[in-house]
């Protein structure tokens, strides 16, 4: 393996490590919510620094590769993609952190009825599945898998679009759970953004492997 290939391999490994960390953050977010586990929520908030540190390291490594190796063609596309995916993953980390803070903020657990009615747990599961698929697609250079993410994101969009009405109805009938309901609404908005980040990542994967730009296009 040449020096450049070594560096690209290391970059890929670092990106996948960051991916795993962010995935775990989001999975723990779901657990913290369903189990009303504030300790776990605080753990997520504390680990956010690690996600940020990864982001800085990967940014620096990309910069060094550009400066020292002047990569071209697929290597150039790969490093550009990693630079952007890095940013997307860091935002997902921020979202997981934000969700954890809502759990820390309330005094009473979120009722099962609230969680079920709003489909927030389903959103968590879809969001996690999107991140996992994106990681697998990236690792295996699988653009077919990357393309499945767009459909999954639509599910998140649908739940999000209806969320205001669903939550408003819930609050009408459960005036003792207003604060919790509003927090759930915020979580839903955040999880919808995880879907958007996942979509961006899928676009970058397809770009680096197929050199196709899918941004801002209706058809994917």
């Amino acid at each position, binding site marked *: 393996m040449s*020096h450049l290939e070594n560096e690209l391999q290391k970059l890929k490994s670092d990106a996948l490590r960051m991916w795993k960390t962010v995935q775990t953050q989001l999975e723990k977010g779901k657990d913290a919510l369903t189990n009303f586990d504030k300790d776990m929520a605080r753990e997520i908030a504390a680990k956010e620094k690690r996600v940020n540190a990864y982001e800085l390291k990967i940014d620096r490594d990309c910069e*060094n590769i550009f*400066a*020292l*190796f*002047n990569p071209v063609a697929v290597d150039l596309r790969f490093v550009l993609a990693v630079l952007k995916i890095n940013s997307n993953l860091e935002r997902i980390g921020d979202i997981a952190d934000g969700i954890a803070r809502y759990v820390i903020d309330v005094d009473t657990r979120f009722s099962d009825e609230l969680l079920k009615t709003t489909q927030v747990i389903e959103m968590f599961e879809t969001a996690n599945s999107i991140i996992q698929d994106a990681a697998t697609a990236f690792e295996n250079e699988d653009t077919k898998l990357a393309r499945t993410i767009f459909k999954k994101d639509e599910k998140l969009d649908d739940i999000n679009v209806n969320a205001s009405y669903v939550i408003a109805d819930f609050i009408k009938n459960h005036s003792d759970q207003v604060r919790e309901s509003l927090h759930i609404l915020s979580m839903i908005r955040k999880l919808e953004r995880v879907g958007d980040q996942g979509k961006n990542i899928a676009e970058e994967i397809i770009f680096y492997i197929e050199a196709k730009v899918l941004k801002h296009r209706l058809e994917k």
Partner: protein
Amino acid sequence: MSANTILDFIDRIKITGLVMVDGKNIYEKGIRVDELRKQVGMVFQKPNPFPKSIYENVAFGLRVNGVKDKKVIDEKVEQSLVQAAIWDEVKDKLKKSAFELSGGQQQRLCIARALAIEPSMLLMDEPASALDPISTAKIEELIYELKKKYTIMIVTHNMQQAGRVSDYTAFFYMGELIEFDETKMMFTNPKNTRTQNYITGRFG
């Protein structure tokens, strides 16, 4: 002092400042030049194998340093040619003339020759500038491997090569050392404006 003449310090051309090799000032009285030459292997811009066989090119330095045992010489020749990543290409024709090799192969033979006397460092003066792109890539990969074991100093006008293979880079201009730093710092955030102007192609 130009970049090339930093390689001439072995021949004791006068320069200013100290030149230290393994903690010793090479201009001190009592320093034996022949011992110094054993510590420092040289590879030049134009491949310069001796008019001898491939085997004898590598064995020459050993013989000059008093090695007589054929078994030892055979082992060292093979080891050096392996280290220079050329053994597989020449193992069946060691008695052939070195001039039958291509330019890139001759340069790797010269590296093997330098390695045979087990120097502590290698000095290379534009080692790939006379070679085709494929041979250049092979030499660079070789340098990347050898640097795990040897201190290697290369003079090059090829900035991209400096970026690809080195850990530290020194930028000289008109005989003056302008900047010295880790290569990644030199190419991402050099401290001196002249360095930045050179690497961005604003001059030179």
